[in-house]
């Protein structure tokens, strides 16, 4: 005889939202893009 059925709580869903903050830093200052942008702004006023 199987034991009688019994309701058990399910494991609640839990999301990892902190992983969305794992991001590369901005490298514009290292690739020279930042300088070019500044100059560009100068030309277009």
């Amino acid at each position, binding site marked *: 005889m199987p034991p009688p059925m019994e309701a058990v709580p399910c494991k609640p*869903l*839990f999301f990892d*939202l902190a992983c969305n*903050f*794992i991001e590369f*830093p901005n*490298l514009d200052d*290292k690739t020279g893009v930042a300088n070019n942008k500044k100059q560009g702004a100068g030309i277009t006023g």
Partner: protein
Amino acid sequence: MSANKENNLIQAYVELNKFCQSSDYERALKAAGKILQIAPNEQKAFHCKVICFIQLHNFKEALTVLSNAKNASLASDLVFEKAYSQYRLNCPKEALETVDGASELTPALKELRAQILYRLEQYQDCYNLYRDIVKNTTDDYEDERKANMSAVVSNLAALTPTADLP
């Protein structure tokens, strides 16, 4: 720094940036390593290296480079990355210590702290923190965060059936 070396460094960063933007973490890792060979004190290259390890789910290596005494000054700003690696390596106690050692509780650290408290089964503190986060955050993950809050509440209910719950 000689002009030649400086030029090489810019080129290397251009390459690294390309791989970062295409989420090619293997190549980005190599590019970051190349920069650190030319200039071992490049904080941003070091930061990218750590992000690559984490994105490649190599949390052990991320924690190793972050904890290496030689890298102390390079790693000092990467508190979140260190705590996240500890959290993923199933060391929530250590992760909490790292988070609480930060000079400022940024939104990223807050989100991580809530998840660590959940892992530590400190559901009441976790619930209070999530309430604070939900109140002060607008992003694309509000539904998921509400699901996390529900998980906290159901765990609270399971632990203390008589408690006055939201």
